[in-house]
């Protein structure tokens, strides 16, 4: 399956992904919480951006007592069935990364649903730090870069990995 992943050393913390996500949520009357998060520790010069990894074994799904979390049949994203969700927050407690949250205006769980297969944050990341692809394409990207850096490969790689 495809997920949104971040090539971390490209992110300049412009926050466009968060904003794009918020606007998208608002358009769909889904609250005002971004489902991608950019953390900047400016004193230590660190930037970290991340969003739901759509885990194979999704702990949020496993703990939900009313099965409000399901897989989107098309994208395989973990999605929230808002009519069923109680807003109890067990999923928030279960997600190891903090990518699951309760939108306070809705009183419901909210998370990245991959925008139905064309994630807005990826479109809006002008640094090209965000990609939409299989998680192994991140591994491949990293390998190519490390290899290149180490001088193990002479041929430059083709840039068009992401969709």
């Amino acid at each position, binding site marked *: 399956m495809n997920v949104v992943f971040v090539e971390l050393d490209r992110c300049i913390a412009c926050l466009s992904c968060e904003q794009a996500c918020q606007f998208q949520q608002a358009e769909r009357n889904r609250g005002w919480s971004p489902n991608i998060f950019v953390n900047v520790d400016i004193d230590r*010069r660190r*930037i970290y951006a991340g969003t739901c990894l759509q885990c194979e074994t999704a702990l949020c799904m496993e703990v939900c007592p009313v099965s409000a979390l399901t897989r989107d049949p098309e994208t395989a994203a973990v999605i929230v069935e808002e009519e069923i969700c109680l807003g109890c927050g067990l999923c928030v407690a279960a997600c190891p990364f903090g990518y699951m949250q309760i939108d306070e205006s809705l009183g419901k769980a909210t998370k990245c649903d991959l925008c139905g297969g064309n994630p807005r944050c990826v479109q809006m990341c002008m640094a090209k730090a965000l990609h939409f692809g299989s998680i192994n394409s991140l591994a491949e990207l990293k390998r190519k870069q490390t290899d290149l850096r180490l001088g193990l490969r002479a041929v430059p790689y083709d840039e068009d990995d992401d969709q």
Partner: protein
Amino acid sequence: MMGTTIIENGIVKTLCRMCDNRCSIDVHVRDGNMVGIAPGEGNPSNQGRMCPRGGAALDMFYHPDRIRKPLKRRTDGSFVEISRDRALDEIAEKMLKIKDRCGARSMGIWKGEAVGFLQQEEYARRFARAFGTPNYFSNDSACYNGRFMGHYLVTGFWNPFPYYANADLILLFGTNPPVCHPPFMAEFADAKANGANLVVIDPRLNPIACYADIFAQPLPGTDGALAWGLIRHLVKAGEYDHRLIEHHSIGFEGVVDYAEKFTPEYVEEQTGVYADVVVNIARLIIENRPKVSFYMGAGLEHHDNGVNNIRALVILSCLTGALDIDCGLTWPEEMQRNKLTLYDELPLEGKKPIGADRFPVLYDLRKECHSMTAMDYMLGHGDYPLKGLIITAANPAVTNPNTRKVEEALGSLDLLVVNDLFFTKTAGRAHYILPAASFLERSEIHIDIKYQRVYLTNKVADVPGIQDEYMLWHDLAHRLDFGERYFPWRNETQVNRYILEPSGIGLEQLQAHPEGVQYRPLTFKKHLSRPLPTASGKIELASPYLKNLGFAAIPEYVPPYHLRERSGEYPFLLTTGARKTLFYHSRHQNMEYFRKLHPKAEVEIHPDDAAEPSFAVAS
């Protein structure tokens, strides 16, 4: 819903103009409504991505506060609707009255950033010339002209946009890429991935500094001292491009002499950047030259002596040998095209353009008057009165310095016409307000000199009763009897054809290629086979032109006012340069989502300063 789309369903490809980067976008139309904007493919500048400011452009188009009808101010200060024909008749009549009474130069034309450049700017310049006034103003005299002049005076051209990805070292001065030039972000990330070093020089600590090998925080306005310190280091070490300097420059001796006093210690004293950091930056430059990209942002020109500080950095860039190479000071070639300015046809000599006496270089190089001096002329303190002004896409009541004076000046005019999408503070002072068209309502030529590409934007929708910029000037010109002669084209498409004529590129070709067409292949190292476009044909390290005008030939460093006149009474220094990604200059403040994220004005202050008892914190 407001507006008629040009297709019922489908995608219209065009360029965004929520800022001047002009990314390719796809506007999705469903059942006659624009429903979404997605990034367009194939444009090397935005590489299939865009930003959320552009993504929200439809909120601007469909904004409930848009001005839909021309308005006229009544004596009690309220506004009434008036037909467009009637409004233009009355405006033309009042313009002629001013011309009769005080001369054509007592009318001014002011074009703001919001409508863009190229032909939109040239319409306004053309109209002013045809009417007979040299008084054309724009936002550029507060931002952009400084950078243009700083480059042009040294190399004879201006192109701030190197191919950063090819650099081994990037130095950013006073710029914050995600805010200033979103498309640069990918290039910086590419450069980093290729192993480039990065030096960030900015009084403000922005996240880009997380990637910097060196981050230095000079006192605002002291970049010139740092530039001279780096020049000195390169010269002393003999580490500069000897061939370039010997064969392609003039004035090197003067540079060597003047640089002498800028020891690392003196630079530290002026800028607050530690002496050893100055030396380390110089070493990085030496290690990586000539593949060094300098970017001088708007932060530099917003200070006194800004042009000279920028010139000093351009000189430094030339010393590294980065002239006319892909990652350095690239020398762009213009597209052959028809210009609309009428500067050759109507030279308008001897009319005393406003500010040209005090700022002769500004007028000479940019044919632009000094907008701050304009306020004095409006208030009757000039050599002649400025009585009327047509302002399009600008909001000087908010953007020009000394707000109270600006408001008073605008309020004293006999005729103030404001053409805008929204009821701005400036519009509130107008006698006539005309509803302006947004970028989605026009089709115009765009040229990107970095990639040497030309584009045609596509109109996506029409709003009944609202005319584009061209029709404003056209309709006024025809009422003033110079329409036939100078505004003969019936619509913007005809103008577009005229502009393109000499280029060999047809309108149809551009229509078929919304991602743009390269008008000329990129070439570098041109200075080896032809003279640079300066008067001497060489790099002007010292400028004979400026010397003739009575200025120093070398870009001397003058400490900024706040250092020259240190004040015990006002110990804090406020800079107003930092921006938010969603806003663009003074634009977009009324967009609902943007306001939701930034509901209030913000001031950043060091916690130690904020703890001072002299700070009253209002809750």
